[in-house]
């Protein structure tokens, strides 16, 4: 085990791509095609579906032999179109694993585990990062009437200061809710009226009220958000949710693909949701209703163990708080697909310590924006803030309007030079999680000869892995297979007591169940046990 990990570390330090920046869709395609081409025995690339915008949603399967029959982990990026790092992590993971494919450790990993990698589920939205007009976008290209006024795409962003970025507008107003951050006046924070604070500004995203309906930029280009289009708590009739759950080509293709693969036992998606820094805690009220809204207790235990592994492997702390909004992929993965579903942003801005040499003092008010600006300053990262500048705004005649704010993508997208280390940490975690996968075994086989050609066979059906054979919730779903145990007889053998064919429910990690049969006859019988998520073990027993 230690040798294996040592090899991995070596491999990860040397074998990475030499890309100089984040990859747009063309570059993502090139990298994935190169991987498939140079690893034909281990990697298969296919286009899951073409989006309405004409972009391929790529899917890379990494594994050996009968890949669809081995316990599998799904790795997903581009879950949110403004989370550029996610795609980089997914492709980086694939590149790391395949560059080490010559080593024994990777060979034995891929002999027993399959990885289904989906690098980018929002290939149209992520292109906005590379466009001449940058704004954080999560929506695909389907034209939607986001404000449901009968018109489509009639009021999008406008680049009022012509700098190629959509930031914010602040309008001085006696009824404004926002005020400057006490420690960093560049940042706008909401005034706390209960504490007697007074606001001075109204805040809008940069643009004009093009359709004169009193709202700003409420219906621009696009689109449906991949991460708002799933069935669990679908936020119906809200911007970006789609006219019904799983309406979009990319969502349908993914759900169809995943339901056909009963070997998947866990999903890791990169995005704003996070149950790895802090695991989901068991809430008895949430699981005691018809429509459950919490994880079942045994599943929270697995989450706790995997979360522990993540924190130890990455060393990350102070994760920003995130709660799933409805229709998201992470929640769907557990509540509707009934698998272990894990999510992490992969990286976040660390909590800064004030630099006394720069006369920085501790923050009196916690704010992600202020923390980010301080960190960017300490790291000497340029161009993260557009200074507030007054403009003439036709929708606010006679009022003071300024455009400025933190540059789009800056908070969630680390400078590229940090990426190789981030890829290394997250890849390491996935490989260690694979080590925990459920694994079936048949142990303590006993045969007792009774009189008149009768043999009693006793065997322990064991899960040697750390993670259960499938989630507890999976016991209720017909998409998740039981551990099946078959006693196969030949010729004139017959089973006198015990079931020839039986299914066992979820076998917890490091646990076993004892089964026994009485068989009449001579010769050999075979016992076969397993499920798609545990693999199969077969033994011969002589009567």
């Amino acid at each position: 085990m230690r040798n294996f990990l040592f090899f991995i570390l070596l491999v990860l330090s040397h074998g990475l791509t030499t890309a100089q920046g984040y990859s747009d869709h063309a570059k993502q395609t090139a990298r994935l095609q190169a991987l498939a081409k140079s690893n034909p025995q281990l990697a298969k690339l296919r286009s899951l579906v073409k989006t309405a915008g004409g972009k391929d949603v790529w899917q890379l399967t990494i594994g050996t032999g009968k890949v669809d029959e081995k316990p599998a982990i799904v790795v997903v990026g581009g879950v949110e179109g403004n989370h550029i790092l996610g795609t980089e992590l997914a492709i980086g993971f694939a590149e790391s694993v395949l560059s080490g494919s010559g080593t024994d450790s990777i060979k034995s990993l891929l002999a027993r585990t399959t990885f289904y990698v989906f690098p980018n589920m929002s290939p149209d939205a992520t292109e906005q990062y590379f466009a001449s007009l940058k704004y954080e976008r999560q929506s695909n290209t389907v034209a939607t009437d986001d404000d449901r006024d009968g018109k489509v795409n009639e009021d999008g962003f406008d680049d009022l200061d012509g700098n190629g970025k959509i930031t914010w507008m602040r309008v001085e107003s006696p009824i404004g809710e926002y005020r400057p951050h006490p420690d960093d006046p560049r940042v706008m924070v909401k005034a706390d009226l209960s504490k007697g604070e007074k606001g001075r500004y109204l805040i809008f995203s940069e643009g004009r009220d093009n359709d004169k309906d009193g709202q700003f930029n409420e219906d621009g280009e696009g689109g449906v958000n991949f991460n708002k289009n799933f069935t669990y708590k679908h936020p119906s009739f809200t911007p970006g949710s789609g006219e019904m759950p799983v309406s979009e080509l990319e969502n349908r293709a993914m759900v169809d693909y995943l339901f056909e693969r009963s070997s998947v036992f866990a999903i890791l998606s990169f995005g704003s949701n996070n149950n790895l820094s802090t695991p989901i805690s068991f809430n008895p009220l949430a699981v005691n209703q018809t429509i459950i809204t919490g994880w079942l207790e045994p599943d929270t235990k697995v989450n706790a163990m995997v979360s522990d592994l993540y924190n130890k492997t990455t060393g990350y702390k102070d994760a920003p708080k995130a709660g799933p909004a409805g229709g998201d992929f992470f929640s769907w993965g557990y509540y509707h697909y009934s698998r272990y579903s894990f999510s992490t942003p992969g990286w976040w801005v660390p909590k800064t310590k004030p630099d006394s040499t720069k006369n920085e003092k501790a923050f009196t008010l916690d704010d992600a924006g202020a923390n980010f600006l301080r960190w960017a300053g300490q790291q000497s990262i340029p161009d993260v803030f557009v200074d507030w500048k007054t403009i003439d705004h036709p929708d606010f005649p006679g009022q003071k309007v300024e455009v400025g704010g933190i540059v789009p993508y800056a908070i969630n997208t680390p400078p590229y030079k940090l990426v190789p280390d981030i890829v290394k940490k997250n890849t390491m975690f996935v490989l260690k999680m694979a080590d925990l996968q459920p694994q079936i075994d048949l142990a303590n086989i006993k045969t007792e000869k009774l009189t008149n050609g009768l043999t009693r066979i006793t065997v322990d059906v064991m899960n040697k892995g750390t993670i259960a054979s499938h989630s507890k919730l999976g016991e209720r779903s017909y998409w998740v297979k039981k551990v099946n145990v078959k006693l196969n007889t030949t010729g004139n053998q017959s089973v006198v007591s015990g079931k020839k064919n039986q299914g066992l429910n979820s076998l917890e990690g490091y646990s076993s169940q004892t089964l026994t049969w009485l068989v009449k006859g001579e010769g050999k019988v075979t016992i076969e046990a397993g499920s798609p998520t545990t693999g199969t073990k077969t033994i011969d027993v002589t009567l």
Partner: protein
Amino acid sequence: MKREVLLQEPKPLMLHSNQETMKHIINFLVFITLTISALAQNADQLFKAAGSPVNPKVAVSWNRYNDHAGITEILRKIEKAYPGLAKLQSIGKSYKGRDIWCITITDFAKGDPDKKPGMYIDGNIHSNEVQGAEFSLYTAWYLTESFADTKFIQQLLADKVFYIVPTINPDGRDSYFHEPNTASSPRSGVIPIDNDRDGAVDEDGYDDLDGDNEILIMRRKNPNGRYRLDPADPRRMVVVGVDEKGDYEMLGLEGKDNDGDGMVNEDGYTFQYDPNRDWGWGWQPNYIQNGAYKYPFSLPETRAVMEFVMKHPNIAAAQSYHNAGGMILRGPGDPTDQVTYNAADIRVYDAIGKKGEELIPGYRYLVVHKDLYPAYGGELDWFYGGRGVYTYSNELWTPYQFFNKEATRDAQDNSSFTFDRWLLFKDAFVDWHEFDHPQYGKIEIGGFKKNFGRAHPGFLLESDAHRNMSFTIYHGYHTPKLNIDTIMEKDLGNGLKQVTAVVSNSRLMPTHSSQDLKFKIERPDIISLSGVKVVAGMVVDNADLNISTEQKNDPANIQVANIPGLGAVTVRWIMQGSGKYTVTVESRKGGNIVR
């Protein structure tokens, strides 16, 4: 004479002796005469019965069922006979490639059909709930055949459009008829599923042990059993008293343990999934809602219906036929979804539902989650919750219809046996007969056939089809009908004139249901003034007290959120100059009118 015989080709004439030839000629002529007279009676011989087409162009027997090929043929005949009233299209293909037919019935000469308020009707989403297709076909047939004679139908088809989809589960329908089944199977479609999660698919379903295309009941003589024969009708099994010994045990539905796992009939083609849990409002996965598939509209048949509905936003009312129980159902199916049905809409539902109880004696107007059971992701939930369409599901057939008095479908209720004995001459029951079972030994198999208990017996089919059709016509009739009641002009001086228009809706349904208004499912109605320069526009909230709300943007085209049922809205423009002007109303579900 059976029809099949008539349609056989006569033997070709051959060269024989003169006598033989004469014989052949005479036989042939007799044959032709009989054929003609049997196929179409002389119109002079017929006298119209009230309310029924006397000499229909399309001859259909309404006392029997049709499989998918049969339905296709009837629809094609209707379209061919009435090209100005009926158009047939396929709205998609089933899992096995059968066309899902929609016949559009309207007066195509009057107005754009897809802009008229639409009534959508379908049937047979559950494979075994077959008569909804016959009732839908009857509706298309009756409307077209009665159009020439009946003023009400002429006006109805000028105003409204009917989209009729007789079966939305054609694979399941044919499987029900042509494969061995009970009255309750299959409920689902035909995509194979591993229901018992053992990795094998459909490895142990029902077994038609005696090969009669029916899945009946198995019983076995057992002195420790809890059943005995009913002395009044020995076909019927009754439970013995609490302290009595019985003669028989009931072993369940016809079948055996095919895969040696100790369970009988646990994973067959008849229990795959439930297509009526595949819709996009309040959808829940299969561990919460038994029978759910992958996600809403993951089945090709329901997806085809969804795509059709999304392309036809003029659909304002809908009916989806099921069986059985004699019910007129509205949602919600999800007990936590009652917020979706608010008081204003419930009033509309109640008015139409109660009318249904009048028109169809024995049927009751009920609410799914409260009077039936919780059901998530059903068709009527999506039609109303997802698209704001007033929708009912009628559960066709009730044992009330045996003798026009209360009865149940309970196995212990003997009205089924009495009805079968005296009115069907025991045609609906397969008498108990012996069988040697591989696991159970000497047993007896018997029971009611699959065409009895949920499906109408032949002689009651047309009558109930007509009553349910009448209910759907009343339902469709009450989709909005808009009228520009008055246009009044007032001179304001300075070259300005004020034009006020009152637009009324003379039917029960508003142009936007409350669910539609709550989520802005459909866009607002637009009332426009054209032909003149419009300076300002407003919605008049109260004409008497002169309270109005101005629409600053695009005043010529006033957006009105809703035109209430049996209500009106008033809009007003200020125009400059003079000239001929036109008032137009464009409403997705209310239709378009001009004055």
